[in-house]
């Protein structure tokens, strides 16, 4: 464990409020997962997948978009191997997130890291990175966010499979919860012109990529291209100051 980590941990664990902080940070995610989880459960139910299998899927996989595609593919009679392969391709983007979050979890026990990795999603990653960046965050708060989101996901998908057909879709704008959360998190990440340029580039590339290339490769493709361009822009600015 490096000294930087020890000082960081000391100031944070003294307050004994890691669970409360984590819970406070995770509620927008949990809130946003409810309508999506219910919708997934309903679709699975309609595809003839029993509720216990939905629970099992949410625990073992814990990845929203892949689970939706799995249900659709099962309903269409796809083979097990093609579903597993599709899942792998869709979720490759987590490779980038795991690399980026590693910077903030340096020197922690491998067992902890292995458990933390299970909870890396688009949403928990974005929330945790925003807090790490602010500096008032540590591994306990971060894993609390991961695991409360996990709990909300498992519960809402299971509920959807059991009673989902009685709940009206899109009530109270819940469909927009995660979009609004991504918008706010994006805004909090725009520290200077380099980040702004990276973001605008990613938007442009992602739209074009999405329109012209089928599948979900636009997420990884646009992220890597835009971050690389932003990186060279940053180096260029530093040289010409």
């Amino acid at each position: 464990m490096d000294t930087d980590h020890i000082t960081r941990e000391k100031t944070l664990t003294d307050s004994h409020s890691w669970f409360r902080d984590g819970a406070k940070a995770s509620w927008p995610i949990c809130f946003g997962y409810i309508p999506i989880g219910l919708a997934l459960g309903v679709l699975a139910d309609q595809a003839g997948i029993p509720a216990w299998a939905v629970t099992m899927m949410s625990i073992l996989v814990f990845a929203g978009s892949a689970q939706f595609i799995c249900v659709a593919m099962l309903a269409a009679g796809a083979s097990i191997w093609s579903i597993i392969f599709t899942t792998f391709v869709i979720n490759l983007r987590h490779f980038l997130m795991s690399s980026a979050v590693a910077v903030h979890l340096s020197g922690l026990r491998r067992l902890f890291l292995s458990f933390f990795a299970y909870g890396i999603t688009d949403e928990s990653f974005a929330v945790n990175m925003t807090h790490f960046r602010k500096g008032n965050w540590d591994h306990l708060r971060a894993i609390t966010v991961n695991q409360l989101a996990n709990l909300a996901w498992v519960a809402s998908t299971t509920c959807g499979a059991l009673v989902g057909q009685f709940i009206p879709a899109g009530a109270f704008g819940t469909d927009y919860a995660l979009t609004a959360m991504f918008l706010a998190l994006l805004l909090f990440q725009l520290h200077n012109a380099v980040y702004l340029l990276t973001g605008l580039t990613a938007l442009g590339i992602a739209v074009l990529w999405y329109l012209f290339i089928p599948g979900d490769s636009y997420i990884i493709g646009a992220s890597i291209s835009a971050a690389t361009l932003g990186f060279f822009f940053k180096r260029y600015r530093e040289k010409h100051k």
Partner: protein
Amino acid sequence: MSFPDYLFLFGGMGLATYLPRWLPLFYLAHRKLPNWLVDWLSLIPVAILCALLAPILFTEQSTRSLELGKPELLVAIPTLLFAVKTKSLGGTVLVGMGLYWLWGACL
């Protein structure tokens, strides 16, 4: 499908999802990363957030075509303004939801 079939399918999906989540963290967290990599990785959150938002805001996802002026995009403008003003994540989520809901209720 029976229990073993589901277990095999979801276990396989789980493994395919877990490996990319686990490998970089497991190895990189115990290495001193070069500065250029840290700099590059610091741009990844912004890039991923924009890549995830882009089709939601600017395209019709059922037909996969360009669509400027959909409610998701129009509601995003006041939502972002609220986020700038308040710096509140939870508040922004609630305001975004409320506006999106109002939009749907008015039409």
